């Protein structure tokens, strides 16, 4: 399969009046179409920075990022970004939140509206179309945020700790939801997380980063039956084996 995303020798230096900080150094990895890749690493190793670079909202100091063989220079609609918080606009109802991106691109066609409506319906949010965000639970809000991203039909989803603001029970449920949505919509995803369990439960591959300046320490291919949900993966023996391996790498 072809690489959807290629990252070559990426470097990033942050500047502040008192110092400069090398956040990323010689970062190289690639993501194939249909993969779910998680990035884990010690805090401050530049995980979120990588996503900002892929999304084109930050420029690298050197190195390059190729998405579908095109160099990323600015935000593109091939990439959808999901944040830690749902960032729903409180003054817009669910339907308007979901179609925000389409409105921005002035592509609120009947076809796209139909697609948005079908996503809401498929993931159990249709009856809340005219509700305000404040009327929804945290898990539902995060699903709305995902649908808002999917409406723009991105090829690559960037997930920046999208579950960490949820309580534990909701988190496990939403992980299953999001994983099945991404699978059934046949999207490629890159997840950044500090939760090793979450990474093992959801991904096909895990990129382990070193502490700052962040660079690839090891890439681990996970061998799970693709039909397993994240929740059910947690029950297997090899789940803990993977955990021990990653834990060891992070020490």
């Amino acid at each position, binding site marked *: 399969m072809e690489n959807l995303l290629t990252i070559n020798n990426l470097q990033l230096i942050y500047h502040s009046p008192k110092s400069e900080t090398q956040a990323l150094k010689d970062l190289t990895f690639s993501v194939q179409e249909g993969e779910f890749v998680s990035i884990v690493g010690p805090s401050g190793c530049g995980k979120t920075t990588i996503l900002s670079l892929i999304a084109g909202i930050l420029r690298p100091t050197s190195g390059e990022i190729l998405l579908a063989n095109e160099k990323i220079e600015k935000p593109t*609609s091939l990439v959808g970004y999901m944040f830690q*918080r749902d*960032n729903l*606009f409180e*003054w817009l109802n669910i339907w308007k939140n979901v179609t*925000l*991106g389409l409105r921005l691109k002035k592509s609120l066609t009947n076809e796209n509206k139909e697609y948005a409506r079908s996503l809401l319906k498929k993931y159990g949010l249709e009856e809340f179309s005219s509700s305000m965000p404040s009327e929804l639970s945290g898990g539902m809000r995060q699903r709305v945020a995902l649908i808002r991203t999917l409406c723009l039909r991105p090829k690559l989803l960037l997930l920046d700790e999208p579950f960490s603001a949820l309580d534990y029970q909701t988190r496990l449920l939403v992980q299953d939801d999001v994983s099945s949505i991404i699978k059934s919509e046949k999207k490629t995803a890159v997840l950044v997380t500090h939760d090793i369990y979450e990474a093992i439960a959801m991904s096909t591959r895990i990129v382990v980063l070193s502490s700052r300046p962040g660079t690839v320490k090891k890439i681990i291919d996970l061998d799970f039956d693709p039909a397993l949900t994240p929740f059910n993966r947690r029950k297997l023996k090899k789940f803990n084996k993977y955990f021990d391996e990653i834990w060891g790498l992070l020490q």
Partner: protein
Amino acid sequence: MKKYSLSHKRYLRNLYLKDFFTHLVRVLLLLAIIGLWELSASKNWADPFITSSPSRVVKQLVALISNGSLWHHSWVTLYETLLAFGISTLLGTGVALILYLLPFMRRVLEPYLIVLNALPKIALGPLIIVWVGTGTKAIVVMGILICIVITTISMLSGYLSVEKEKILLMKTMGASPLQILFRLIIPASFPDFISVLKINVGMSFVGTIMGEYLTSKAGLGYLIVYGGQVFKLDLVMSAIVVLCLMATLMYALVALLEKCVKRR
């Protein structure tokens, strides 16, 4: 109707009683103040020539209404206040927007804003009169000066407090700077706008009355100054009562606007 348990009914009853009691004491307090005021005047505990009294205020108000001057003076003050309120809110919100959009200008002008905010605007009174002349114009300018700096500062901090992550989200969805402004920054800072309106209700009255103290031929501020000079404290008190009512009404209108927009 839903059936509630006994304990819930008791809870609701307590809630209702508490609410009722609050309102009751509020009204009683007002009556007590008016009663005590009247009593002290009639028993000559305090000289009613200096403290006036509720009955004298009512008499004065009736006299003002019957010769039509109450409406005239109230209208003049209300007109000047509304002008100052409207112009300063619009200008302040606009200036804040420009400063928000131009970070360099914002940094340059920051100390100037701080000084302007700290300056007691009444000190500019003589300048205003020399520059724009006496009368309504000077009064409205005074009102605007008092409101505009705080409007600018409040709205600017409102724009700046829009979450960075929401701006990033807009960028990742390919939004242009104008789209970010109109679809995110402005609607997100609407609560700040409402609180600016609420502050400006009070501030624009302060400005107008101060302006009327400086230079006026009519208005409630004029009545207060005139009443003070000729020692007609009944007139002063009456004008203050009317001012209280007008300011409350305007605040209530802003609160109503807030409710309407929130429900939408």
